[in-house]
């Protein structure tokens, strides 16, 4: 793909721009959906495309396409150049220079993807469903059990000497299990992530979905009050993802982050330590370099209770007179790079899950949240989101709870984080996040 990227850079320079950069992606992927002991669908996917940034002086334009023929790339170059002419000048918009720093050597692809034929990964999806059904007689079925993988080759080249290419693979399986009891129906999600199918444990994934669904049987509304809250890793990850967004320098510089004025300030309890780690081999967002070719790194974001740094790409680094932290993210070739966290990693604490519950005493364990895209104000950090989970009484799990909301704001929540559990895991919510369960001293619960 590096050749495609180089061709696109050449073609764009020939269209009369001052600088050009091309990001090319080639991907093969598979997906299997299982339901009722049968394979519901099998998908084989190939995908390739290129996105070009063109600079005309201080004006930046972008174009992307799937036609990688000579004519296709020339048309792309012309459209990127036209787009640049429409944009306003921006003194900070310039491209990154290759600075000689050598990106880390990372092994991000797993040969088991290529080694497992479609029939074997289909069996894995079926095994996930079976495991869910066998866990508990109250499991009436599954909505679906899904296996998916992708093998990607990504290349970037620019007129400023950036040139690099890497391969990465990822796969996941999940199940949405259905538990039934007199008239009521509950769902539970079980999932696993890995670089290849060999890393997945279908029995554990199925069991998790089944246990989460059956745990909710007979759930009622909690009483409205303010109380200690334990967020399980899947829920904690969603909130950590929101915090990661607020720490992006773009939101900060444009006055749209609740953390804008808090650099260096005490914003969290000592118990909460958060890193952005673009090099963790287990993190799906890991790569040798970011979406504009700048080497990835590991940064402490919150440590010792203080906010240590914001996340920068090249644009925000120019604007904030800082260095890029290697946090230019892309969602494929279709999107301009922009600041985003890579892998957000919350350091595990010493208490196991039961210990966290004892510490909470009387409160609520939240195992699922809904409505994050509409219930959170990203500028002020104020949120109120739908939740379900379990009551905590006398430091132990009690009755299941549903149809309530939890409300607070992101900064208050960080300050109220009293303890991190020892049960850290990778979660695909909120971006790519590894987090344990978190004990928050107080949040508002609205139920009956």
């Amino acid at each position, binding site marked *: 793909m590096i050749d495609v990227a180089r061709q696109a850079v050449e073609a764009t320079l020939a269209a009369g721009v001052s600088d050009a950069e091309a990001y090319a992606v080639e991907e093969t992927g598979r997906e299997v959906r299982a339901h009722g002991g049968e394979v519901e669908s099998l998908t084989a996917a190939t995908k390739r495309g290129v996105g070009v940034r063109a600079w005309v002086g201080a004006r*930046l334009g972008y*174009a992307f396409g799937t036609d990688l023929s000579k004519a296709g790339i020339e048309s792309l170059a012309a459209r990127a150049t036209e787009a640049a002419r429409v944009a306003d000048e921006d003194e900070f918009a310039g491209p990154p220079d290759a600075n000689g720093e050598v990106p880390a050597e990372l092994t991000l692809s797993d040969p088991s993807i290529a080694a497992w034929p479609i029939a074997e990964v289909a069996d894995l999806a079926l095994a996930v469903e079976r495991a869910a059904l066998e866990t508990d007689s109250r499991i009436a079925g599954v*909505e679906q059990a899904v296996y998916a993988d992708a093998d990607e080759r990504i290349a970037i080249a620019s007129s400023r000497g950036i040139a690099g290419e890497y391969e990465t693979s990822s796969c996941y399986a999940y199940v949405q299990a259905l538990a039934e009891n007199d008239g009521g129906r509950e769902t539970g999600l079980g999932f696993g992530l890995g670089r290849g199918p060999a890393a997945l444990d279908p029995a554990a994934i199925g069991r998790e979905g089944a246990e989460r669904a059956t745990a909710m049987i007979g759930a009622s509304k909690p009483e409205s009050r303010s109380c200690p809250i334990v967020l399980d890793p899947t829920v904690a990850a969603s909130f950590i993802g929101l915090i990661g967004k607020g720490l992006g320098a773009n939101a900060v510089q444009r006055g749209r982050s609740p953390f804008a004025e808090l650099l260096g300030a005490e914003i969290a309890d000592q118990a909460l330590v958060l890193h952005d780690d673009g090099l963790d081999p287990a993190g799906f967002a890991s790569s040798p370099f970011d979406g504009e070719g700048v080497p990835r790194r590991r940064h402490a974001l919150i440590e010792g209770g203080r906010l240590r740094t914001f996340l920068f790409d090249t644009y925000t680094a120019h604007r904030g007179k800082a260095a890029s932290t290697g946090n230019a993210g892309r969602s494929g070739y279709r999107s301009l790079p922009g600041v985003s966290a890579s892998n957000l990693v919350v350091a595990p604490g010493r208490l196991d899950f039961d210990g966290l519950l004892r510490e909470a005493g009387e409160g609520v364990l939240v195992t699922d949240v*809904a409505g994050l895209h509409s219930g959170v104000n990203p*500028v002020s950090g104020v949120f109120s989101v739908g939740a379900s989970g379990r009551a905590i009484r006398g430091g132990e799990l009690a009755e299941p709870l549903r149809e309530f909301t939890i409300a607070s704001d992101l900064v208050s929540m960080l300050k109220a984080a009293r303890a991190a559990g020892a049960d850290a895991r990778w979660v695909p919510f909120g971006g790519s996040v590894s987090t344990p369960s978190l004990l928050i001293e107080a949040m508002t619960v609205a139920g009956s």
Partner: protein
Amino acid sequence: MSERGELIEPEVAERVLARALAHGGEFAEVFAERSAGMTMAIDESRLEAVQAGAEQGAGVRVLSGGTTYFAHVDGLDPDDLERAAGEAAAALRAERAEPRPLHAVASTSHAIEQRPAEVPAERKAALLRELDERGRGAGAEIAQFMASYAEVRREVAIANSEGLLTGDDRTRVRIGAQAVARRGEAVETGAETLGGHRGFELFGDDPGSIAEQAAGKALTLLDASPAPAGSMPVVVGGGFGGVLFHEMTGHGLEADHIQKGASVYVGKLGEQVAQPLLTAYDDGRMPNEWGSDAVDDEGAPTQKTMVIEDGRLVSFLYDGLTARRDEVASTGNGRREGFRHLPVPRMTNTYIAPGETEPEAMIAGVEQGFYAVSFGGGQVDPATGDFVFGVSEGYLIEGGRVTRPCRGATLIGNCLQALAAIDAVGNDFEMKTGVCGKAGQKVPVGTGQGHVRIGAMTVGGTEV
């Protein structure tokens, strides 16, 4: 009229379908698509993020014994299509079916007066500058203002082994405005959008007013106090209030959820699920509406489907596969984000038909309650029926009157209970645009209604 010859030649389509069925299968389909679009934004009064995209490709699927085999490729050359057909069929070993000869079925795409691609980029930029000026001019406390413009033209062609060859030519435009208001420590946001299955003519009638509406919402919220927490009567505003019905009922009526037993509406067909004052539709044919198309993404004509008649559940929403299983006709709800996705039953434009109550009278009937004027969005688990909505503009109702604005409210409840609790439907009506996510696919949907009152619902705020 639609002339899709240039997207996929009938002879090529026939060859691809034959190849797809080479290892067996009951049904094969090729979905070809060419899309081109442009987006741009204004932020800090600077025009930026100008992007132009062009993609083309095809997805081929084969149905055999309850399993769907699907492959997609980039590119529309005959070689690309045959490769997709070969990959879709690769894992298949079954009885072979002969595809029928193709018959072209004409479709009438929604009329586009002014093709966005033919409008100079400077005019789009000028539109955003106008939004910026009007948003910022709405009040001294507007600290930030952003607006975006998006256009896309999607030409699709669909051919299947039952002999269907048809297509559609879809152009959509949409603008959005977002304002941030600040007073001391208080920071509030407001947003508004305008979109349609239309050309640039959509912006003929004062598009800049959405900037003032977005700014107005943010400014109003500066005076807001924390939302109440607890159960109370809720009056929902018209237009985007329809997202409530979309989440509460629409998703649960999609036939894939029904057939898997993963919907609270399983077994409720023909039953009274709401009070007789409520009638609702899914209508993919509304002229130039955001969620409309001429045919769905399987080539079935879109239609107006009554889903609730005087409170009785009368229809589910079907795509081809789920319709075949239930031995009914597709309701034209087989939609896909693009050629890289399989079609699934999806809503188009979903709305509660206007009722008889004046909105003012509806509010006057509430002693102590909540007025949710608009939502930021919502989410539902169709299997349990649990839903949640983020309120972007809400007020307290006290003594039959709308009093103070509230911030940070969320509505939460269960579909069947909340639907049955609707005790008044307004005689006003408005449609709004939304983007709905399901099975990892986003599609444009319209939501609509007049004012609606729900007898009791949980408002999740911070004030216990």
